[in-house]
């Protein structure tokens, strides 16, 4: 008699405690537990069916991976790719209903060939007449090592072509682990149409806001979910080994519940991330998350929405009523190629720019106010870079000039403006005025820099000034040469 079938006389078996059934496969029987949930069922405050409305392309591009394993990480993509191919290589007809949510419980976190996935949970939208009608959650459990091939075979058989894998840290952990299990059992792993790792989306969108991106922290901070009774993840391997040794399954229902909740939380988080990307400004959120959304959308080629998010983020951390006109939301944006308006210099070469007068800045602004100001300044700088990268000079110049107008003007704004006048607009004198203005502020100690930064700035500004004056001198001398 096979030992795996041996039951303890004293302890309950898993099938007595968890309502499951045995699924026949060519490799033996696999124990499976299935739950069917209506689409209206709330998972952590979000209806399961809500996922069916998420912009799946956008979400996949933000946190996914292509079937071949090639990553869509935008940080590594080139600028040209970001501008021209926001969603490279994804199947065109992707739909949220293709998603299959997967989470495993394993005998350890070490990975490698000696770690077993003893519980594999999957959740998918079951179609009825071509329309998703319910959410099915099925969990396969390896009652002892020899049953693993049956579970893997059941997974392969269940797998539907076109399934889009959704996991939490599955790019690095769950999926490679399962692929290893299939390989060890000489089976071919199924190939998903793509892989969407919610951990990536969470890191990108929420790390700044909630700190730790552990699933438990995310569900508490973003979904307000607190699990009443739960097994801590680190205990799960030893619970399973205990069960194997003693054949006492009494601790297992809690592990099944843990796995089930992880999958439901994953659905809720993915839905939330999708909604945020779809309507970033509609969310009730803070500057950090708005900024993260802005960056993500910009990287995905959604420039208008990305810029709008950054602007909203800046507003969200600006004191009441101080919103500069350069930061107002611009939806839709003005034509990008237009010349800067406002106080743009005329053809005249001698002219005084309306520069601020230097005043020793209070660099040591403390407390929440100081932190908010620091964040605002960083975000304004980021918005400036984004505008510059997109070639939207009119808005960029307006923004930089607004930075000269604030209580503590910023060196970077001086420099960016000087570059603009010198290289873009070809107005060397205007550029020189800006450099001189920067130096004046610098000497007055009005830029809030420390001694080292001041020295470096002085050197760089000096070089810039010297070059500008050289070029200006040549320009004046040139007609003479021609005359001679």
């Amino acid at each position, binding site marked *: 008699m096979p030992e795996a079938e041996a039951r303890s006389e004293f302890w309950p078996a898993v099938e007595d405690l968890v309502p499951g059934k045995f699924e026949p496969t060519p490799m033996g029987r696999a124990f499976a537990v299935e739950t069917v949930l209506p689409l209206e069922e709330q998972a952590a405050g979000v209806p399961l069916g809500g996922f069916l409305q998420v912009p799946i392309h956008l979400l996949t591009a933000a946190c996914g991976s292509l079937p071949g394993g090639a990553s869509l990480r935008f940080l590594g993509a080139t600028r040209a790719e970001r501008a021209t191919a926001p969603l490279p290589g994804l199947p065109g007809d992707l739909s949220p209903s293709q998603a299959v949510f997967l989470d495993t419980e394993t005998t350890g976190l070490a990975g490698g*060939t000696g770690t077993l996935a003893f519980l594999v949970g999957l959740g998918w939208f079951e179609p009825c007449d071509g329309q998703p009608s319910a959410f099915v959650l099925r969990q396969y459990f390896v009652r002892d090592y020899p049953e693993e091939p049956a579970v893997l075979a059941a997974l392969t058989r269940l797998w539907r072509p076109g399934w889009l894998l959704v996991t939490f840290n599955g790019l690095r952990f769950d999926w490679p682990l399962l692929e290893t299990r299939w390989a060890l059992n000489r089976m071919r792993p199924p190939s998903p149409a793509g892989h969407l790792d919610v951990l990536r989306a969470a890191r990108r969108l929420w790390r700044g806001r909630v700190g730790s991106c552990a699933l438990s922290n995310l569900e508490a901070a973003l979904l307000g979910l607190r699990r009443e009774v739960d097994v801590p993840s680190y205990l799960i391997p030893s619970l399973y*080994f205990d069960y*194997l040794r003693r054949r006492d399954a009494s601790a297992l229902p809690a592990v099944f519940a843990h796995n089930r909740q992880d999958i439901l939380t994953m659905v809720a988080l993915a839905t939330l991330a999708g909604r945020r990307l779809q309507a970033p400004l509609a969310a009730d959120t803070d500057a950090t998350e708005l900024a993260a959304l802005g960056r993500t959308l910009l990287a995905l080629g959604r420039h208008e929405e990305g810029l709008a998010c950054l602007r909203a983020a800046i507003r969200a951390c600006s004191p009441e009523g101080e919103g500069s006109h350069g930061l107002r939301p611009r939806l839709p944006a003005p034509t990008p190629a237009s010349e800067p308006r406002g106080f743009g210099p005329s053809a005249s070469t001698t002219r005084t720019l309306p520069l601020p007068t230097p005043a020793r800045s209070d660099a040591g602004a403390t407390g929440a106010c100081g932190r908010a100001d620091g964040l605002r300044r960083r975000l304004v700088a980021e918005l400036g870079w984004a505008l510059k990268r997109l070639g939207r000079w009119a808005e960029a110049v307006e923004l930089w000039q607004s930075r000269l107008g604030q209580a503590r003007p910023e060196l970077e704004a001086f420099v960016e403006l000087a570059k603009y006048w010198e290289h873009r607009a070809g107005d060397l004198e205007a550029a020189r005025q800006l450099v001189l203005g920067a130096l004046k502020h610098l000497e007055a100690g009005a830029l809030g820099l420390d001694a080292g930064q001041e020295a470096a700035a002085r050197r760089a500004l000096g070089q810039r000034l010297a070059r500008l004056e050289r070029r200006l001198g040549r320009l004046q001398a040139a007609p003479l040469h021609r005359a001679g």
Partner: protein
Amino acid sequence: MYSHQARAIDLVLKGHNVVAVTPTASGKTLCYNLPVLQAVLDDPAARAIYLFPTKALSQDQLAELHGLIDVLGADIKTHTYDGDTPAAARRAIRAAGHIVITNPDMLHTGILPHHTKWMKLFENLRYVVIDELHHYRGVFGSHLANLIRRLKRVCRFYGSNPRFILCSATIANPGELAEGLIGEKVEVVAESGAPRGEKHFIFYNPPVLNARLGIRRSCLLDAKALAAMFLRQGIQTIVFGRTRLAVEVLLSYLREACGAGGPGAGPECVRGYRGGYLPLQRREIERGLKSGEVRGVVSTNALELGIDIGQLDACVMAGYPGTVASTWQQAGRAGRRSGTSVAILVASSSPLDQYIINHPDYFFGLSPEHGLINPNNRYILLSHLKCAAFELPFEEGELFGVATTDEALRYLEEQGVLRRTQGRFYWASESFPAEDVSLRSASTDNFVVIDCTRPEPRVIGEVDRFSAPMLIHEEAIYLHEGEQYQVERLDYEEKKAYVRRVDVDYYTDASLAVNLKVLTQADRAPVPGGERFRGEVQVNALATIFKKIRFHTHENVGWGRIHLPEQEMHTTAYWLALGPEADRIHPSELQSALAGLANLMVNVAPILLMCDPRDIRAVSHTRCPFTGRPTVYVYDACPGGVGLSERLFELHPDVLQMARDLVRDCPCPDGCPSCTLGGGEEPNKSATLRLLEILGAAGPRAHSPESGALTAARQETPLVRAGGGVGGNGGVPASASAEEEGPPVGRSPGHAGG
């Protein structure tokens, strides 16, 4: 192609496993590169693994292979895969690398436990190349043998059956070592067909400064004088120092000496080379040596390995490198294929050096060392059995090198790390076993040594549990790469020693109270004057006190107590019980005589066993409870033993003969640290000599140094004379010429021991 290359390649192509034993720079890499490249050209799916003991060697081999592949113009992807490989490149290497160059540690923790990611490699693995075979001896070799068992097991799973090509420097038992490592029959190719120019091998013993203490002039000073003389004559020279510190000292001496400058010998023409230098810097020095821009190099044994620096004119070794094989490797750095070259060995005062320098006939005439391993050491075997079970479940009845595999698996099941069900043993633990096993030591629970000199502490070394009380007790001076550190705190529970850099003129020597109990006696045989045994022993060792001993003079300049728990270890031992003849030695002298003999045996045995003197220990009893007789025990210093003392049982007459030669030829009046002083007993040289005679180590050896041959060895006047030059005939004194022989090889090829 040379004859040895042709023969090796021919054997490989016929499907044999081959070990090629060749001196440095005889083109051994071709023996494996050709068959491997051919295999990939014939079948682009074919794969090969190259194993080198260090990362630097991997880099070197990568460069050589790239050169060959460029010439071929073929698309053969060759990569190193080690701790330095960027994560982004790993996936591509796993999927598509034809030749993967790595080291045993990476194979152990990075490749085998993740073998499913290497499916392409393991399905198509045709060759496994193991270079620098002689490095894999003792504990390291025993680990490697088990690693190869694991590798072959994974290959079987994927249906491949690779051939092994091994290369070794000259050792006494290349075939035996290779077969022990890979567990299969191996053909030995041992004759080098490479041409060799005339070569002089000079043994130089610095003059005695203090006969009582056995102190000679520093070998560093004399090595410097010799090297400076060569460099000033424009002779390209390599100098080997034994430690990093020695290298740095020699380097600054030499730069100073060459600063005055002869032609092409400014200070920048002399470079240092050792571990710790950046790879780019090393490459630059290697190129400089090949092109001749660099005229002199001072190196640790880092350059003893197969790194290609071309061939130099002269080699000076400051101190005996520790093994005959290493000495030949280092000496091999000098020696053009045509033209004359010279290698000089400058001896230090240590017993090993003194034995070698006084017995050049031994060095040239007798066999080099044995590379010994014990793959079935219980501790090592169990460690790898866990790793193997992690990689693939064991079938009941499956063998892992030993007939008792099943028993060991059941033991691991009892320990709770394996689960047996339906005829299979499955890994059933959360841990990743390979991470807990260090290939370079036997016991798994090592102490780490943490340097706290700088604000950010860093780990500089590891000490195994059994050596910890001796080496890293509080106040101990811990030597690491020639630097001195003092142990400030030893956290015994956490297995951490906190040390700080110091610069003191003494070292510490701990006394160990050893209690040895014989567990099983495996073998016994009568010998002149007594009886020899071998078997298993239990050693209980308690570190009691330590002494601070001044360098050079060996004065005792202080002491302290050690408060650490007793250590217990089961290991293998060889012991010698004296017969009634030994009663001729007066009881008052017996203890000194025995202690002297024990010290001598520990000092000469490494010459025969190719191990570090720390790998074996000895203890003597005037009346041993087990034998009831005066007895000397020599045991392996690692749990379970790696076969060292077992071999001593067989080498008994040689050990005694060497011990006797060493003590007799030592110029000290009545015992010094170079011969019989050690273990805390007053030395009594004459008593030890009489004891050795009783034990049959009496008659003069066939080629005693007194017979007049090889007189260079006895040269005690400084070699460097004012104005003396080496360019002409007169500069080099009597030399032991070894031009035609090279190292003696293949004396016992094949399958001894089997």
